[in-house]
C-alpha cells in the first residue's frame, strides 16, 4: 500500500529550507508560502527576480530560492521597473509592507501602476510598522492604538486608512488589482488563486498586477496569534473589503 501513497503537501520548491525570523502568528510566512506556490505552479523560480523592500519583508532574499535585489524604503516599484525593462523575459515581483508602499513609496507605486509596468506587486497590509516596533501606518484603522497614536488614530488630525487596492485599481495602467486575506482556510484558498492570477497577468504580458494581502502583527498589536487572526475578520475586512477591484487582464 505504501508504494501507492502520494505526497500531497510539502515545502514549496521556491522556498529555501530555512527558519524565518517572523514572530509567532505573523502571516508573512503564509504569504511567502503563497508566493512560492505560485512560482512553483508556473515553474518560474529560475527566471524570477524578487525585489525586497524595507521592513520585516526585507529578508526575503534569505527565504526565497530566487535572485533578489534589495530596494530602498518605498522604492521597490522603481527598482522593479529598472530590472524588468532590462530583462523583460524575467518575472519581477516586489513584496512590500504598508509603511513602505502606502506611505513613503506612494509615488513609486502609483506611477509604476500608471505606466502599466509588467510587474507583480504583493502588498502586505498589517496596519502597522512591524520592523520598527508598531508605529502608526497609513493603513492603521481609526481608533487603533499604536506607539505613535497612543490614544488611538484620530482621523480628524491623522487622516484615514489608505485603501490601496481600490486606489491602484482606479488607474488606467493597472490590469489587475485585488485584496485578499489569509485568516481562514477559505480565504487562504482564495488568496492562493489570486496570487496565481497576479503572476499569470505578468507572465502573459497583460500588464500591472497588484495584490493586497491583509495580515497580522500579533507582536505589535499586543495580541495572541489567535486573537490577532480574529481581528483580521472582525476589524480589518469590514474596513478593507476583500475582492477584485480591477481585472482587465483577459487571461
Amino acid at each position: 500500500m505504501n508504494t501507492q501513497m502520494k505526497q500531497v503537501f510539502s515545502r514549496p520548491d521556491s522556498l529555501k529550507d530555512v527558519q524565518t525570523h517572523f514572530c509567532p502568528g505573523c502571516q508573512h510566512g503564509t504569504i511567502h508560502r503563497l508566493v512560492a506556490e505560485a512560482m512553483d505552479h508556473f515553474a518560474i523560480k529560475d527566471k524570477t527576480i524578487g525585489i525586497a523592500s524595507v521592513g520585516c519583508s526585507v529578508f526575503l532574499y534569505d527565504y526565497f530560492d530566487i535572485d533578489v535585489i534589495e530596494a530602498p524604503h518605498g522604492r521597490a516599484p522603481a527598482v522593479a521597473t529598472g530590472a524588468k525593462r532590462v530583462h523583460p523575459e524575467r518575472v519581477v515581483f516586489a513584496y512590500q509592507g504598508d509603511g513602505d508602499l502606502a506611505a513613503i513609496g506612494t509615488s513609486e507605486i502609483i506611477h509604476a501602476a500608471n505606466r502599466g509596468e509588467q510587474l507583480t506587486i504583493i502588498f502586505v497590509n498589517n496596519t502597522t510598522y512591524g520592523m520598527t516596533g508598531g508605529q502608526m501606518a497609513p493603513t492603521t484603522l481609526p481608533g487603533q492604538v499604536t506607539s505613535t497614536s497612543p490614544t488611538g488614530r484620530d482621523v480628524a488630525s491623522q487622516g484615514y486608512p489608505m485603501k490601496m487596492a481600490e486606489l491602484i485599481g482606479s488607474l488606467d495602467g493597472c490590469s489587475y488589482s485585488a485584496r485578499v486575506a489569509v485568516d481562514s482556510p477559505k480565504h487562504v484558498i482564495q488568496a492562493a488563486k489570486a496570487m496565481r492570477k497576479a503572476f499569470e497577468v505578468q507572465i502573459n504580458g497583460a500588464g500591472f498586477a497588484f495584490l493586497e494581502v491583509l495580515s497580522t502583527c500579533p507582536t505589535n498589536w499586543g495580541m495572541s496569534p489567535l486573537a490577532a487572526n480574529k481581528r483580521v475578520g472582525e476589524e480589518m475586512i469590514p474596513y478593507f473589503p476583500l475582492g477584485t477591484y480591477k481585472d482587465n487582464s483577459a487571461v
Partner: protein
Amino acid sequence: MGALEAGCRYYFGYPITPQSDVPEYIARHLPALGGQFIQAESEIASINMLLGAAACGARAMTSSSSPGISLKQEGISYMAGSECPGLIVNVCRSGPGLGGIDASQADYFQAVKGGGHGGYHIIVLAPDSVQEMYDLAMLAFDLSDRYRIPAMLLADAVIGQMKEGLVAHKYVPPADLAEKTWALTEKCNSGKRKVVKSLRLGDGEMEAHNNNLHARYAEMAQREVRYEGLHLDDAELVLTAFGSCARIAKTALRLAREQGMKVGMLRPVTLFPFPAAPLREHCATARKVLCFELNNGQMVDDVRLALPDKEVAFYGRAPGAGSLPTPEEFLAQIRTHYEA
C-alpha cells in the same frame, strides 16, 4: 552622446534646468538604438530605476541638476552600498535650495565627499569641454564597471549647454574589463542565486564591506587619477581649477605667460580620486598655489590637504546676475599672488 556610444541603453530622468537638454537628446535617440527612455515621476524614482537596471548588468544612466541630485542621494548611497555601477550626470545649479541656474561649481563637496549617508565615495569626473563630456562619459562607465562604484560627471550650465566642436569616435571597451558575473542575468538563473543588497547585519560584515570599499578608493587613487598639466616645468605659481572654471583660468594663464610670469596650471579631471600625488609632485618647486573655483571655496580644501606645506591661495565666486568671472579678473589675481 558619449554615454550612448559607450553602450548605455537605459536612461531614467526627470526634467530640471539646466540639464533638460540631456533627456531631450536621449529621448530622441535612444529608442532607435533599441534602448529605453523613461521620464520618471521624480528624481528619486529615476535613481532607483537606475539601481534596478544596474543590478541587472546594464549600462544605464540618469541626469539631473543640484536639487534633483540631492533627491537622488538616497539611491546613490544604496548603489554605493550594493556596489551597483552606473552614470549620474549633474549639470550643477548655483546656491542652496532652488538656487540659480548660473554656471556654478557649488556641488563639489556633495559630489566628492559622498553626498548621501554612510561614508562612501563615488567616482567624480569634471569635463571642461563638450569633447570631454563625450569622452568622460565613456570613461565613467568603464571606471564604474571596473570598480563597481557609481560614477558622476560634474558639469555646469556652461558645459551642459554650450555648442562646441566635437570629434565623435567609436567606443572601444577596455580589453581587461571583466564580465559582470555578480549581476542578475538575462536568462534563467539555474546556478547560484544572486542577491544585490546593502543591508549587512552580520557580525563584522559591515566593517569588512566598508574596508573593502575604501581599499578600492585607495586603488583608484593609485591607478585612475587623471589631470591636465600646463607649463608646470618652470612654474613658480601653480593654478588649480576644474571644469568650465579651468577654461577661464587657461586664458588667464596664457595672458600671464605673455606678460612673462612663470605660471603653470594643474587641472584635475578626476575630482574623486583627487590628483593629490601629481599635485605634490608638480608643485614641489613652486612658491605658491592659487585655486580658482566658481563657488566660495571647496576644491581648495583638497588642494590644501594635498599640499600641507605650501601656501595655497583661493579666488572664486559663484556667478551672479549671469556674469562669469573674466580672464582679466583671474589675471589680476594671478599678478597679485605672483608678485607677492
